[in-house]
């Protein structure tokens, strides 16, 4: 029964993708039938969600594996198509399918009238299918299939509105940057397979003790590199902000709630192995903290509402990596859950706003205005939207307060737990963790500031678009606001699954008990953290600091931006001087990559570069590709078309081959 359910959970989204994708491809008449397509597409996710809820409720604490079939059994390698149901995969399944269902519903309204409506639902279903493969897999191979599958869907969806050249460039950039991470993943798999002779999680995690510390370190390092690609950490985070070119529901589902957290999931799944590589964990903590800070500072300066949210996502992912770095895997997953709620809510809210602003743009065009410079995502043209979009306003406010960490909302509990764990790790003899904690506190303050800024600039103050208020946006349809309200409720109460340790000695931290290994779950726990060695007063103090900076940040920013509006940005720029400038240009990371990697290649390769197609991929990836292409053109000169040159090359080859075989 349960095995059958697992099959259905996996296969229904695939069936949905085929029905909404391939059938309309060959029967163009169906493409415009939005109600049919959206019904199929949404049910293909909603029904599996119900099944996961059932599995979750009837789960008896014993992990079980549903094997579809043995896929290859070549030599030592035996790989099954097997899916694992345990605490971790159930939690992830609930989040992915739950948020996924809501976003499908939301998309019905958001994508209404788009030519690619059917394609969009097909891609979304395909994404859910791949994501389920990723989180339910029982071995690294199937997980990797899902891992690449979500990358593919991400590529397709970022480039969805492909008539816009920039979108395609962003899609390519995301794809190619991620290939670097995937490549590390493959190497880790090969390495582990060679050492352990199997790739299913039981073999891997039971075999950790038999591995040499070098091997473990290498493997964890490679897995971490893979995670930095998918979860957008330094140095591979440059793709995520650009990925916002896709439709907003995609940003919410893939680039905030689910796909980008798969790096965290991977590390949590392999937590026993990660714990065996303490050196790498320090690196993870540092990278996480740096990413969180860097992204938060950039977010303060952005004016595009989706880019603010994108950098905020990068920053929050940094928090999660901090948790992993100090060995608190379950907290990372906890933050994944709460973050999925409020960040999806924020994106959907911004989508609702953009939807409304497009309406404004349309009306302006109707009135004969020149709208070529009008940007529906620019917060500088918004303001006072609370008057026009009440539901969006309230839900966005809730999400803002939640992500800022205002006490008793979901973000507070999970973020506080991360900071607490970091501090405790320092207390338990990991000096760098204190620094991580300090950076975390600073970042929390910045988070409160930039999110409040985004909220105030968008919803408060006065209208800044032309012809206001005679032309005004309207509230989005029910199919869009319903998911907003649902997520808002979750963003409020979601944190109560993990109450802090000061309450009832940690007994009420349900998610800790559910996931962590000491309690039967699959996620490892640092052995000494179970003792909660910190004095009680210190614990309360830490909570107070965490809540305090959030309240401080929100109130400061609220007062400042409510009073001065956009002008406060300029005051900040003056006050902070060059620092603000650095943030504004995003630390010039794209340019640094250019200077470090691209330009030298270009200089060496000389001419031919300028002719290269400028539109394929921009930034780093583009540059590297163009550099290689230029190199190719140089190599290509050997290909003169004259037979005798070819023959000379061949004889050169003969001489080399003979020399190698005779004298080496």
């Amino acid at each position, binding site marked *: 029964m349960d095995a059958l359910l697992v099959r259905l959970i996996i296969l229904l989204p695939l069936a949905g993708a085929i029905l909404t994708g391939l059938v309309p491809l060959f029967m163009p008449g169906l493409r415009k039938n939005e109600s049919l397509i959206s019904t199929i597409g949404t049910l293909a996710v909603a029904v599996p969600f119900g099944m996961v809820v059932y599995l979750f409720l009837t789960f008896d604490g014993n992990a079980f594996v549903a094997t579809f079939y043995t896929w290859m059994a070549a030599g030592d390698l035996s790989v099954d198509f097997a899916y694992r149901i345990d605490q971790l995969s159930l939690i992830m399944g609930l989040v992915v399918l739950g948020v996924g269902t809501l976003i499908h519903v939301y998309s019905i309204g958001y994508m209404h009238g788009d030519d690619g409506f059917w394609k969009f639902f097909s891609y979304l279903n395909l994404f859910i299918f791949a994501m389920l493969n990723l989180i339910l897999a029982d071995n690294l191979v199937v997980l990797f299939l899902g891992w690449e599958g979500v990358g593919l869907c991400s590529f397709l969806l970022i480039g969805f509105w492909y008539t816009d050249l920039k979108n395609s460039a962003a899609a390519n950039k995301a794809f190619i940057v991620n290939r670097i991470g995937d490549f590390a993943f493959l190497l880790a798999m090969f390495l582990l397979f060679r050492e352990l002779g199997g790739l299913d999680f039981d073999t891997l995690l039971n075999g950790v003790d038999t591995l040499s510390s070098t091997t473990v370190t290498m493997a964890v390092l490679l897995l971490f590199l893979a995670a930095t690609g998918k979860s957008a950490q330094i140095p591979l985070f440059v793709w995520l902000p650009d990925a916002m070119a896709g439709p907003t529901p995609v940003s919410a589902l893939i680039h905030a709630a689910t796909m980008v957290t798969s790096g965290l999931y991977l590390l949590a799944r392999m937590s026993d192995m990660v714990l065996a590589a303490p050196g790498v964990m320090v690196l993870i903590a540092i990278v996480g903290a740096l990413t969180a800070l860097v992204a938060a500072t950039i977010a303060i300066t952005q004016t595009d509402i989706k880019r603010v949210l994108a950098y905020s996502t990068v920053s929050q992912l940094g928090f999660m990596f901090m948790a992993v770095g100090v060995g608190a895997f379950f907290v990372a997953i906890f933050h994944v859950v709460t973050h999925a709620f409020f960040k999806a809510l924020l994106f959907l809210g911004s989508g609702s706003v953009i939807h409304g602003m497009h309406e404004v743009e349309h009306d302006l065009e109707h009135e004969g205005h020149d709208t070529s410079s009008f940007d529906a995502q620019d917060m500088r043209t918004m303001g006072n939207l609370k008057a026009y979009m009440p539901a969006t306003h309230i839900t966005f406010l809730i999400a803002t307060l939640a992500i800022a960490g205002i006490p008793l909302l979901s973000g507070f509990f999970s973020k506080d737990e991360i900071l607490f764990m970091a501090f405790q790790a320092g207390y338990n003899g990991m000096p760098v963790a204190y620094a991580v904690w300090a950076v975390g506190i600073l970042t929390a303050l910045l988070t409160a500031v930039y999110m409040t800024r985004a909220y105030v600039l968008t919803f408060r103050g006065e209208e800044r678009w032309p012809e206001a208020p005679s032309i005004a946006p309207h509230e989005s349809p029910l199919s869009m606001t319903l998911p907003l309200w649902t997520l808002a409720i979750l963003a409020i109460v979601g944190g109560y699954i993990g109450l802090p340790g000061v309450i009832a000695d940690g007994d009420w931290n349900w998610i800790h008990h559910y996931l962590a290994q000491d309690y039967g779950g699959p996620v490892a726990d640092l052995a000494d953290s179970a003792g909660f060695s910190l004095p009680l007063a210190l614990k309360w103090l830490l909570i107070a600091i965490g809540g305090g900076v959030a309240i401080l940040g929100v109130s400061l920013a609220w007062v400042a931006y409510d009073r001065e509006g956009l002008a406060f940005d300029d005051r900040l720029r003056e006050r902070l001087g060059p620092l603000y400038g650095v943030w504004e240009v995003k630390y010039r990371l794209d340019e640094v990559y250019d200077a470090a990697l691209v330009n030298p290649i270009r200089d060496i390769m000389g001419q031919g570069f300028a002719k290269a197609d400028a539109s394929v991929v921009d930034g780093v990836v583009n540059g590297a590709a163009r550099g290689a292409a230029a190199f190719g053109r140089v190599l290509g000169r050997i290909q003169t078309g004259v037979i005798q040159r070819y023959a000379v090359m061949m004889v*050169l080859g003969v*001489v080399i081959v003979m020399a190698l075989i005779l004298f080496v």
Partner: protein
Amino acid sequence: MIQQVLFLFLAVVAIGSALGAVLARSPINSALWMVVNLIAVAGLYITLNALFIGVLQVLVYAGAIMVPILFVIMLLNLGSMPAPSEIQWKHVVAFILGVALLTQLAFVLAIGLDALPEMSVSEEAVAASSAREIGKMLFTRYVLPFEIIAILLLAATIGAVMFAKRKFA
């Protein structure tokens, strides 16, 4: 003794005519030098007591292959190529590579052949190289490659007709 003298004579002729074929300005001269070379090599086969192959060499190579080549040269009315005005770098590279290859082959011969016995064409060898023995082998042991060679020749004929015919339908 007579064998050595004969070998040396034929070898000198073969190398000389090969150089002539490669170096001659006019393609006609090249082809004629080539014929000399092929006949000298046929002579070498005979010094090895490989009579059947020697005869075949003259018949097939010198006869069936060289004649069409001469035909084509005359058909296209090809004159001499102009002498190269200056030495091009590609010629230098080509020469160096050719010498390198020859050196490697010489190395192989110098080092590698110690293990091989000295030349003495036995009665067995004479028997093994007879037309009778070769024919028997061709039609039993190597009948499959023999049949495939037939296909190869058919394909080559089709191709030659296809390329050379003025209008092919």
